[in-house]
């Protein structure tokens, strides 16, 4: 299983992600600079959190158009797993690899706190090590996590099981529509989520519930659809 991590200027949870993957898989992921046009051979591509290009213009907008993203798009089309966390999720929506948009938090403030997430769909390659409907704690840290999609898109992702993680209604930190915290594409190989499972993988973090997402992705079920 080869993992690569895309780094943009302004990425800042790349180090957290590298540490998490290294701890969980025993192997250090390959770092890929945004100006590259080709990806090393990878089974899992991760776009980490941060403020790529300062999040200026819109979060993830400039990064989504960086040279490496064409390679990510081809890989995603070829069925390779792609995971975007926080800024990574924003980049994936801006790149059109996931539907919808992430807008400014309803409270207009950056928010860093622990929320509760419900695993809405454990039949994905990213979540099969969770129980269906399991509630897990997980930290969030973002300014633009307010998921929005038009009603047609929303109906579709809701009915097709593409909503993978939802905030419990009392812990929705950003006003996201239907409490959506993470979604997967139709093909089931591209997942984006706002919370930071990489900051919840060991006792020192106060829990290891985030680890199961990476363990799922690093040991995908064979041949599953979303």
């Amino acid at each position, binding site marked *: 299983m080869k993992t690569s991590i895309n780094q943009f200027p302004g990425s800042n949870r790349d180090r957290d992600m590298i540490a998490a993957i290294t701890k969980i898989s025993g192997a250090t992921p390959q770092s890929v600079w945004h100006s590259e046009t080709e990806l090393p051979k990878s089974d899992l591509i991760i776009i980490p959190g941060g403020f790529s290009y300062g999040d200026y213009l819109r979060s993830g907008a400039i990064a989504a*158009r960086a040279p490496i993203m064409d390679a990510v798009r081809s890989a995603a089309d070829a069925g390779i797993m792609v995971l975007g966390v926080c800024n990574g999720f924003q980049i994936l929506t801006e790149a059109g690899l996931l539907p919808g948009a992430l807008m400014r938090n309803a409270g*207009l403030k950056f928010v860093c706190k622990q929320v509760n997430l419900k695993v809405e769909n454990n039949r994905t390659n990213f979540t099969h090590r969770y129980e269906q409907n399991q509630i897990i704690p997980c930290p969030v840290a973002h300014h633009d996590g307010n998921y929005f999609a038009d009603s047609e898109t929303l109906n579709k992702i809701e009915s097709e099981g593409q909503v993978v993680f939802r905030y419990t209604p009392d812990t929705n930190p950003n*006003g996201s529509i239907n409490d959506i915290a993470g979604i997967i594409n139709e093909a089931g190989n591209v997942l984006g989520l706002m919370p930071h499972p990489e900051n919840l993988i060991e006792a020192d973090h106060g829990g290891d519930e985030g680890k199961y997402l990476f363990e799922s992705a690093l040991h995908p079920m064979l041949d599953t659809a979303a």
Partner: protein
Amino acid sequence: MITARITVTLKNGVLDPQGKAIEGGLSALGFSGIGSVRQGKIFDVELDAKDDNTALGELNAMCAKLLANTVIEDYHVEIL
């Protein structure tokens, strides 16, 4: 150099949390009679192009490719 102003606004029906907060802020300051506030962005761009038409073409392309997120935003280009 041609100077242009690009205006990017949220599509109708897209919730605007910043606009809402500003409405609240304005009423708190005692302003009354405010129906709604919607926030948008402008980009003042200087560019070198052989004529206004070429510039317009370029500017529209910039919007479509980067400056606006057409999932949620509309844009408008104006040469000043």
